[in-house]
């Protein structure tokens, strides 16, 4: 009897002690691991954006290979939601409740992110770097949500600035997708045009499903635009430039970071994308390349991106993976989270992580400088993150010629 009691006591002790050794106060954190979740479309029409999650995955593997964070490895769980918010919710809830995530990184798609935003924020689960430039992430700001994707108002501002100040163009028009993406661009373009003493000569909304570009080209021609900002989808950009060429309308085309993958765009437009001005938030370093010089994405000059190419892409990406803007963006969006984890220290909790994130000021990874501030429910800037953009011109061989260095472009609210 005594022997039995002793055995039970020993088992109880081991269980409790074992749990104490293994466990941690915070969900998703053990002695040796930090669990981070992510969703992205790996299949379906938005599958090209799936490279974001694969980029993040390679990035975390690189970090783990270098020893991890404060002795812990990052266990990255990413799942395919097919760009369907119902599946995003299902996957997020399953990973959060079955496995237990410390936090979430990136996550492609505005609708997908909005479907889980309340769930994550209601449970005080940190989420860093949603990969869509929507004002929903920062306006109103959320304590546990840190944006780092450059909001599209900044893209529009630098493009108008380049058009007006560098190229001397005065008749600037904009075609914009009739959603958050396009409307942020429109707000930024209007603001910068007013600063330059100009007004946009045409503001043409477009639906995602629009495929016939001829009516839009007619409107742009009628407005006699000498430059056109395109805040539309990749396919529409290709079609608009192609239709413009066919209709003998040849303005200076300009587009956003979303459509800035030069080799890809040159390939799908059969070279017509050459000469287009694009807004950039990473991939190469304009300060190193220098204004007027060109940059090859396959031989990046940015020291951080060069390291990613060698240590993450070459070692951990699948052999069929393409080194491009979307893949690198997946690494870039995770950088501030990693910095926050480093600053939070070994004794990691979500509250300490948030406090550490709020100390990030002018953090420089592969994107523009990233800064956060103490949480203020009335000030979106405390969670905007990155506001720096630079601009370049795409060359015929799919390279970038730098036109304007990193420029601070503050967040502009949609009218």
């Amino acid at each position: 009897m005594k022997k039995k009691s002793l055995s039970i006591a020993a088992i109880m002790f081991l269980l409790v002690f074992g749990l104490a050794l293994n466990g941690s106060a915070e969900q998703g954190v053990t002695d040796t691991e930090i669990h981070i979740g992510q969703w992205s479309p790996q299949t379906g029409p938005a599958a090209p954006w799936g490279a974001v999650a694969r980029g993040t995955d390679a990035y975390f593997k690189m970090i783990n290979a270098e020893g991890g964070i404060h002795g812990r490895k990052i266990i990255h769980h990413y799942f395919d939601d097919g760009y369907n918010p119902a599946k995003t919710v299902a996957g997020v809830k399953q990973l959060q409740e079955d496995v237990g995530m410390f936090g979430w990184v990136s996550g492609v798609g505005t609708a997908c992110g909005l479907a889980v935003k309340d769930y994550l924020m209601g449970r005080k689960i940190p989420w860093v770097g949603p990969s869509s430039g929507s004002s929903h992430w920062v306006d109103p700001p959320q304590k546990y949500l840190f944006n780092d994707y450059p909001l599209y108002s900044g893209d529009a501002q630098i493009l108008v600035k380049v058009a007006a100040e560098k190229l001397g163009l005065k008749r600037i028009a904009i075609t914009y997708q009739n959603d958050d993406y396009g409307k942020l661009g429109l707000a930024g373009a209007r603001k910068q045009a007013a600063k330059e003493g100009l007004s946009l000569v045409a503001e043409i909304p477009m639906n995602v499903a629009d495929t016939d570009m001829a009516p839009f080209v007619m409107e742009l021609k009628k407005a006699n635009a000498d430059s056109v900002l395109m805040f539309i989808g990749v396919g529409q950009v290709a079609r608009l430039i192609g239709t413009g060429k066919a209709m003998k309308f040849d303005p200076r085309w300009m587009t956003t970071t979303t459509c800035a993958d030069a080799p890809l765009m040159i390939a799908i437009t059969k070279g017509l994308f050459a000469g287009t001005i694009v807004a950039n938030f990473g991939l190469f370093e304009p300060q190193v390349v220098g204004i007027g010089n060109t940059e090859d994405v396959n031989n990046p000059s940015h020291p951080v991106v060069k390291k990613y190419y060698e240590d993450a892409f070459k070692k951990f990406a699948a052999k069929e993976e393409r080194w491009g803007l979307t893949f690198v963006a997946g690494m870039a969006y995770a950088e501030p989270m990693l910095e926050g984890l480093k600053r939070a220290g070994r004794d990691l909790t979500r509250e300490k992580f948030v406090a550490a994130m709020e100390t990030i000021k002018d953090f420089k990874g592969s994107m523009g400088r990233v800064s956060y501030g103490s949480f203020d429910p009335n000030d979106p800037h405390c969670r905007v993150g990155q506001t720096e953009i630079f601009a370049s011109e795409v060359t015929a061989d799919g390279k970038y010629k730098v036109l304007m260095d990193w420029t601070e472009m503050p967040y502009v609210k949609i009218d």
Partner: protein
Amino acid sequence: MDMKRDYYEDIQLFSSGVVIFWFVAMMVFLAVVPFIFKNYYIYVINFMAINVIVVLGLNLLVGYTGLISLGHAGFFAIGAYGTVVLITQAHLPFLLALLVAGLIAAIFGFLLGLPALRLEGPYLAIATLGFGVTVTQVIGKIKILGERQGLHAPDLIIGPWHFDTDKDFYFLLIPIAIILAFAARNITKTKVGRAFISIRDAEIAAETMGVNLTFYKTLAFALSAFYAGIGGGLYAFVLRFIEPELFSLSLSIMFLTMAVVGGLGSMMGPIAGACLLSWLDLQLRNILDIPYLGEWLRSLSQSYFSLTGVSNIQYIVFGGILLFIMLFEPLGIFGIWIRTKKYWKTWPF
């Protein structure tokens, strides 16, 4: 075996004591589900319940009346947007807003039913498809509906209750789904249901017998759209955010697939079809976590089906399951159930 001897036997709700037993067992199970399963599974069941509601309505149209619709995502969208806007703009209470949004969808269903009087088969499919696509385009242009930027669903409050968690929604959704399932079953057993069936089986004969085709065809569309509208209104609150892209053609096709795979022209079939396909849609990616089989499927996918080394096997398995069901049991899951029942009733012969 299931032969009915008189009219009253045909219309009774429960055909035998066995059916009552299983119904009670099902109710007990549904009552304890939220206390057994994790929150995540409750979300999956809520999602199933919404699809069950829509597919029950679609079954009244396709299974009982013999008309086709590839535009049900449009009615679903009208219900979703209608409910949210009626609460946020007209300040109606949730249940009233849901009902009104369902009725608005029904009016659109009635309107869409008018061309159905002259069209059938693939021509009707194309007309309804056009409706579904048009709805999302129009919503994307209307400011009060959030245009392309979408709408947030407000907090769901009914009287003193604040529905916030998946468990809360469960206790709202399941009773609504059960009520609508009973309503659908009763409709099929009334004069209206018999008129639907007669139109499906022999339209000219039905008209000769005095069935008003104009009335019953448009009614079938209106009823079916009402169910879709109610489903949409609930969906907006389970998802918390809606935008036009959610209500795509592929969603309409998914609803129709659920009805066909379940078994058209029955009650249990569409319920089973909606549950199975909803579950597969959300859960099939977990197939990769099954020991050994998961690893094998992953390497199979990465070797032959995926360019980027990321597995997409769940979609291949999903398609394979649909093909398998349709190939071996054209009557769908309901057909499998009928055969199983017959086998046990006649066993050992």
